Each structure stands twice: as structure tokens, then as C-alpha cells.
């Protein structure tokens, strides 16, 4: 509903206000509807009061195409008349929006040209740039406000055109068809500038070529095997290291490592040839002594068949060493494990001329030089090699000391040594023998000496602990001195031997010529008597005494097969064979010269060898000839050369003989000396210790019968 009241105000104003009317009216009109609905008409106090006639007056409105903003009275100065003249017609064009575009109609000149060009350059890429520069202005409604005359003139010119005004400026850059430069399509200007060209400089670097070596290898089966073995070793080492990871072990390990490395760095490469050198030395010797080696292996004296029960000793090698030239051979011992290795002890039997001693170990494979050399201050009188540990050698000295050498450690010093504090003998040690390990698995050995003591030594960790086993007393020689003291004359032991099976029973030979059979309380039974362990010695019993010889007993040995039989020899020129149950000897042999040593053969219970000071070796076989030697042969070249010791090799048919000049001769036994019992046809040949025992038994029975008869 048209509002009359607010209209009254606008009606009184001119035409110019009509626009405002319309504007405001529409605005108010819309809002007014709400107002009228909600509220009743309110009459403002200053509303014009009109009469009804006035109210009904009609007004007309007309829509024209005139620009309400356009000025209605533009004047222009006319130079002709010299006055301002109003222009009749004013431009009524109102531009609401203008934008400059870049579209050109296809059919226009320019469009056609471009199209043609594109076709031309379809293959080779031609870049025809159409650059438009915007030179057009945005005609806005505010323009007429600006009093700029130029702008107006422009606008005038553009009247005839279409509403959308397009002002173009084309810049066509003709480039060569092959080059297509992507340029900014709107606003591009090619601008070039020249930079300074830096002078070029060549820079080179040359190295020395890395050293090259040719490497070639073959992948053999054994190379692969070697690689695997090394891997295994490495892994094992790692495992061992992990196991022993105590700090102490580490320290010692480090020290050892340092020592090793320093030694390696110090030592020349030549030490690595040591193994090869040893082998070559043996080879060279083998060549030189080739015939000897052949004899040793293969020669069997054919003449024995004709000789009828007599045999010979074939000399093989001779061992001697410069350093031991003046020293007599005082002890011989074969090694149980390495059958070609034997030990020689050097010293002197002469009471007046006592000097140093030497221990040499020779191998049959190298007769020119010993494998091991040890020297000592005092002469060595006896030695023994342990059966289970073939690297342990025990040695008895002239000054009463005992020492144990460990061949695994090539020190020149013994690993164990007795001293005055630790109970050494006061007289020369005449025999040492290894015994079985005691309960704590400590090695132990026995020694006998002229001071009358038989001592058992035990290797406890790094010390020698001694226990007096027994003191030899001369029977019937206790003399009473005035104060009532019983003075025991001490017997001097010169040889002893343990029973093969009953290891606590042994025989001792003395200087007086007596042989004692002693039974000892087993050392591993720690019996502590009422007065303490020292008095254990008195518990050892003298089982028996044999009046064996008139002079000192040089050697006593049990028969290796027959447990009852033993043999003794002495400087009184005799060799006697005993049955330990009978006080008188079974067999007696007189050899016309002081007997240095006797030894049973390991292969037969009836064969034994004896050596005398006149340089002869005698071999007996009781099964063949009970009364005489079947071999009686001078062994050493020069007279006055006394033979001191003899030993059979456990495996080979050879014996070694040592003399007092320091030479050792190796002799081969001829077949007659090694006769085994003949087998009757059809009967099996019985072999074994039992046979030997029965063989000897037969002989002994014969003898016993004879004795009982007489």
C-alpha cells in the first residue's frame, strides 16, 4: 500500500530528487510492508495535511533511456564566437563495465593472418607470438567526474564501437621456424645482455697408478678343505676365549700374546724353517748312513744258520757328542712312546774327577746330533723316563740332588729340582725310577742313594715333596757306643727295582753286596702312626735279605715276564739269577771282568745281556744254553774302554751300549739271539707272556731239582 505520508516530502523537491525517491521508495516500500502489517499507521506530527482533492491527483511517471549521471548542461568554448556555448547533445552512454580481452574475430584481418601462419608452421615448430599490450582503459562510471579532457576525447572516439572495447597492440616476433621460445604471452620483451666470459683454464691432476700384482689361484679340492679347516680353528679359538674369560686369564693371555708378538717381530723369518730343517737334517743323515739304516731294518745275518746257537751283534750307529766327550755314560733309557728316542746321562764314576753332567736325548733317525741337550753342574748318575708321560725325565745327580726335566718345555733348566732344604741325598743318587701316580694324581718317583735312604718324591704343583721310605740298615752292625746309643751303620744302596706287578715291593742292592727285598706300605694310604707320619718309615718291612755278591751290586732287575725271577750283577765279575723265594741264586755266571750292567730282553724271558769293563757284551739265552753266553763280543773299539750300561730297545732288535768315553753304540741282535721256541708241526705257535713264563719255569724247575738233589 503506497504510503502517502513519507511521500509528501519528496514530491516537493525537483526532478533530481525523483531518483532518490525511487531508490528510497523501493527500499522503504519493501520494508514498509512489514511495518504496516505489524503496526497500525502512525501519523507523524509534521505530515502535510492535504485535501482529498489533492490526494486524488494523479501523477505520471515515464521511463527514459537517459543516463542520470550524464551531465545535462555541458558548455564548450567556441573560439569563433568567443563565448561558451552549451552543447545540445550530451552523450548518454553509461559504461558499467569494460574489460580488455585478447580475442580477435576469426574473420578479421589479423585473425586470418594468424591462422595462415599457424598452418604454415605446423611441422616445424614456429612460435608466433601474439603479444597484446593492454592499452585500453577501463571506462568506469567515475569517468565523467574527472575533468580530464583527453579522456573525454578518447571516449568520444570510442563511441561507435561495441560495448566491449578491445585495444590491442600486436607484437609479432618473427623467429626462425626451428626455435620455439616459450615466452610470456601477455607481456614479453626480449632483452639481452652480455656477461663477462671468464677465461678458461685447464686444470689436471695425475696420480701414480696403484701398484698392481697379478693374482692367480686354483680352486682345488684341498684349497677348499684348507679354508674350511681354518674356519673351524677360528671358531674353536673364539669358543675357547669365551670360555676362559676371567680377568686373570685375560692378563696372562695378554702377556703371553705380547710375548709372542714381540718374539715374532724379533725373530727372523728363519725360525719358521725349523721344522723343515729338522726333516732335512734327518734326510741328509739317512743318506750318509744309508747302509746302516738298511742294515737296521732289513739285515739278518745269514751266517747264523751255520753258527749253531751262536749269535752276533752287528754294530749300527755310533752316537757321540763333543760336549759329552770326556764324560762317561752313566745311564741309558729308551723312551716308551717314541721307540727311536733314547736318553743318555753323562757324568763321571770317578770319585776324584767330578765335573759337570749332561743329559742328551738322541733319535735313531739322526745319529749326528742329539734332539735335546741339557747340561747340569753335577754329574748325572741315573735317569728314568716316565712310561705314561714320555716327556718327563727324572735324573739323579752325583751331589745327591734329583731333578725332573720336561721335554715339552725347551728350557735348559729342569722344571723341578731338589735342594738341600727339600731333602736331597747326601751321597750320589744311584738310581731313580718313576712309579704310579699317587691318589691325588701327582707324579712320583723313588730314588736310592749311598746315604742309605730310599726316598719317595712327589711332584706337587711346582715343588718336590720328599718322603723317606726306608733307611737301609746293615744287619748286625749295630754297635753300642759307650753312652748306650745304638749306632746304626747305614747301608749304601746302589740299585733298586720295583716288582712289575706288586708295585710296593722292591729290591735294593747295596754296596756291601746284599740285596734286600722291601715291602712298603702303599704310599697312597696315608697312615699316620701314633708318632706322626715321619715314623712311617719304620713300618716298611724288610722282607728278605740275599747275600748276593762280594762287592757292590751294580744292577738289579726283575724278569719282565716271570714274576719271581730277578737278576743281579756286580763288580765281583758275576751275574746271578734268583728266584726270590729261594735264598741262593739259580744261575751264576762269571764273566772274567767287572760287570757294568745287565738287562733282560723285552721279547723273551730267557734272554739277557751283560756288559763288562773289558769292552765286551755278553748275550745269554737260557733256553738255548744255560751255562754259557751265546754271544760274546767286543763291542767298543779301543781297549781300556769300559762299557757302563746296556739297554734293549722295546720294539726293535737292537741294543744300545754306553761306555765311559761318552760314546753310545747301537748294535743289532742277530737272529740266533732272538730265537723263539720252535713250533712243532701241527701245533699252534703260542705267543704271549704265559709262554715265556712257562719256558723259564721249566728251566728253573730243572735247576731246582738239581739243587734239591745236591
Amino acid at each position, binding site marked *: 500500500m503506497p504510503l502517502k505520508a513519507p511521500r509528501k516530502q519528496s514530491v516537493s523537491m525537483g526532478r533530481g530528487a525523483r531518483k532518490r525517491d525511487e531508490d528510497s521508495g523501493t527500499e522503504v516500500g519493501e520494508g514498509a510492508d512489514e511495518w504496516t502489517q505489524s503496526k497500525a499507521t502512525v501519523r507523524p506530527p509534521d505530515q502535510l495535511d492535504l485535501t482529498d482533492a489533492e490526494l486524488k491527483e494523479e501523477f505520471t511517471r515515464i521511463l527514459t533511456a537517459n543516463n542520470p549521471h550524464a551531465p545535462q548542461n555541458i558548455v564548450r568554448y567556441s573560439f569563433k564566437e568567443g563565448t561558451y556555448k552549451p552543447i545540445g547533445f550530451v552523450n548518454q552512454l553509461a559504461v558499467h563495465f569494460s574489460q580488455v580481452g585478447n580475442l580477435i574475430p576469426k574473420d578479421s584481418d589479423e585473425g586470418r593472418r594468424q591462422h595462415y601462419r599457424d598452418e604454415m608452421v605446423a611441422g616445424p615448430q614456429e612460435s608466433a607470438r601474439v603479444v597484446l599490450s593492454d592499452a585500453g582503459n577501463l571506462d568506469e562510471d567515475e569517468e565523467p567526474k574527472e575533468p580530464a579532457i583527453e579522456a573525454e576525447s578518447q571516449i568520444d572516439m570510442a563511441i561507435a564501437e561495441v560495448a566491449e572495447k578491445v585495444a590491442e597492440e600486436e607484437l609479432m616476433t618473427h623467429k626462425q621456424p626451428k626455435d620455439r621460445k616459450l615466452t610470456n604471452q601477455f607481456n614479453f620483451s626480449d632483452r639481452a645482455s652480455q656477461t663477462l666470459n671468464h677465461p678458461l683454464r685447464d686444470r689436471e691432476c695425475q696420480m701414480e697408478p696403484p701398484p698392481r700384482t697379478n693374482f692367480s689361484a686354483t680352486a682345488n*679340492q684341498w684349497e677348499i678343505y684348507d679354508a674350511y679347516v681354518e674356519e673351524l680353528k677360528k671358531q674353536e679359538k673364539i669358543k675357547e676365549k669365551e670360555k676362559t674369560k676371567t680377568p686373570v686369564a685375560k692378563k696372562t693371555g695378554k702377556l703371553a700374546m705380547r710375548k709372542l708378538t714381540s718374539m715374532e717381530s724379533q725373530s727372523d*723369518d*728363519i*725360525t719358521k*724353517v725349523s721344522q*723343515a730343517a729338522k*726333516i*732335512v737334517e734327518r734326510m*741328509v743323515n739317512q*743318506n750318509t748312513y744309508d747302509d746302516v739304516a738298511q742294515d737296521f731294518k732289513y739285515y739278518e745275518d745269514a751266517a747264523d744258520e751255520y753258527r749253531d746257537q751262536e749269535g752276533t751283534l752287528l754294530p749300527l750307529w755310533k752316537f757321540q757328542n763333543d760336549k759329552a766327550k770326556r764324560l762317561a755314560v752313566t745311564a741309558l733309557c729308551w723312551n716308551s712312546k717314541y721307540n727311536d728316542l733314547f736318553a743318555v746321562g753323562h757324568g763321571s764314576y770317578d770319585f776324584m774327577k767330578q765335573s759337570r753332567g749332561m743329559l742328551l736325548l738322541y733319535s735313531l733317525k739322526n745319529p749326528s746330533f742329539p734332539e735335546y741337550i741339557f747340561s747340569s753342574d753335577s754329574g748325572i748318575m741315573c735317569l728314568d723316563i716316565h712310561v705314561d708321560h714320555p716327556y718327563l725325565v727324572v735324573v739323579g745327580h752325583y751331589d745327591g740332588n734329583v731333578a725332573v726335566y720336561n721335554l715339552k718345555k725347551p728350557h735348559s733348566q729342569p722344571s723341578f729340582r731338589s735342594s738341600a732344604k727339600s731333602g736331597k741325598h747326601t751321597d750320589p743318587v744311584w738310581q731313580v725310577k718313576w712309579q704310579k701316580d699317587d691318589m691325588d694324581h701327582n707324579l712320583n718317583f723313588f730314588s736310592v742313594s749311598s746315604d742309605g735312604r730310599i726316598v719317595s718324591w712327589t711332584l706337587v704343583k711346582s715343588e718336590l715333596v720328599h718322603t723317606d721310605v726306608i733307611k737301609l740298615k746293615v744287619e748286625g752292625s749295630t754297635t753300642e757306643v759307650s753312652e748306650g746309643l745304638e749306632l746304626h751303620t747305614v747301608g749304601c744302596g746302589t740299585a733298586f727295582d720295583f716288582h712289575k706287578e706288586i708295585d710296593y715291593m722292591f729290591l735294593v742292592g747295596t754296596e756291601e753286596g746284599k740285596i734286600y727285598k722291601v715291602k712298603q706300605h702303599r704310599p697312597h694310604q696315608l697312615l699316620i702312626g701314633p708318632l706322626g707320619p715321619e715314623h712311617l718309615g719304620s713300618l716298611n718291612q724288610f722282607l728278605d735279605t740275599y747275600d748276593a755278591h762280594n762287592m757292590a751290586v751294580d744292577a738289579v732287575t726283575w724278569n719282565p715276564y716271570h714274576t719271581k725271577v730277578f737278576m743281579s750283577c756286580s763288580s765281583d765279575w758275576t751275574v746271578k739269577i734268583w728266584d726270590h723265594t729261594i735264598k741262593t741264586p739259580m744261575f751264576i755266571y762269571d764273566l772274567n771282568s767287572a760287570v757294568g750292567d745287565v738287562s733282560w730282553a723285552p721279547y723273551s724271558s730267557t734272554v739277557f745281556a751283560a756288559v763288562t769293563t773289558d769292552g765286551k757284551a755278553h748275550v745269554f739265552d737260557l733256553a738255548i744254553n744255560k751255562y754259557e753266553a751265546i754271544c760274546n763280543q767286543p763291542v767298543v773299539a779301543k781297549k781300556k774302554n769300559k762299557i757302563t750300561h746296556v739297554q734293549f730297545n722295546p720294539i726293535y732288535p737292537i741294543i744300545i751300549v754306553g761306555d765311559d768315553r761318552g760314546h753310545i753304540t747301537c748294535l743289532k741282535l742277530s737272529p740266533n739271539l732272538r730265537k723263539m721256541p720252535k713250533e712243532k708241526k701241527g701245533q699252534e705257535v703260542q705267543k704271549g707272556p704265559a709262554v715265556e713264563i712257562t719256558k723259564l719255569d721249566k728251566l728253573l724247575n730243572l735247576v731246582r731239582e738239581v739243587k734239591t738233589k745236591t
Partner: protein
Amino acid sequence: MIRKTEVEETLKRIQSHKGVIGTMVVNAEGIPIRTTLDNSTTVQYAGLLHQLTIKAKSTIRDIDPQNDLTFLRIRSKKHEIMVAPDKEYLLIVIQNPCE
């Protein structure tokens, strides 16, 4: 602990042994390290014997990889050549067996 002097002594003994003409020590590449013969002979022996030893060693090991060559002897009309190989070195001795 094998001391240098012991090895030296052994080599001296070998050299002074009856019938030995010469000794030489050759390294793994066939280069002589120590010799008692003249240079040209040494080089010749070293080169030839080195190859032969390798061949011999390879033969033995091919047959049984757990086996290894201990020494090699070549007996000729005039003398005998003995070769003892080691891990890194080769010891060659020429001897006249004087039969």
C-alpha cells in the same frame, strides 16, 4: 719357543755334513733368501724346484686333502736333491750320497 740360534746351528750342521754340496732357503714366491751356492745356480734351482714342489704338493693333496707333503727327494745320477716344504718356506739341500 724355537730360538733363532738353534735353527741356524741346524742349518750349519747340515751344510757341514758329509757330502752336502749346498743348501738354500726359498720363500713362498720362489725367491731365495739364504744360500750357500752362487747366485745364478741358486736362482735356477729355486725357480725350478719351487714349481715342482707346488705340483707335488698339489698332487698329494688332490688325492687326499687331509694328507700333506712332508718332503721330496729327487735322486739323479750325480747327486740327490732334497726339498722340505714348510708353510712359507722351502728348504733345499743338494747332497752327494757318496756310494
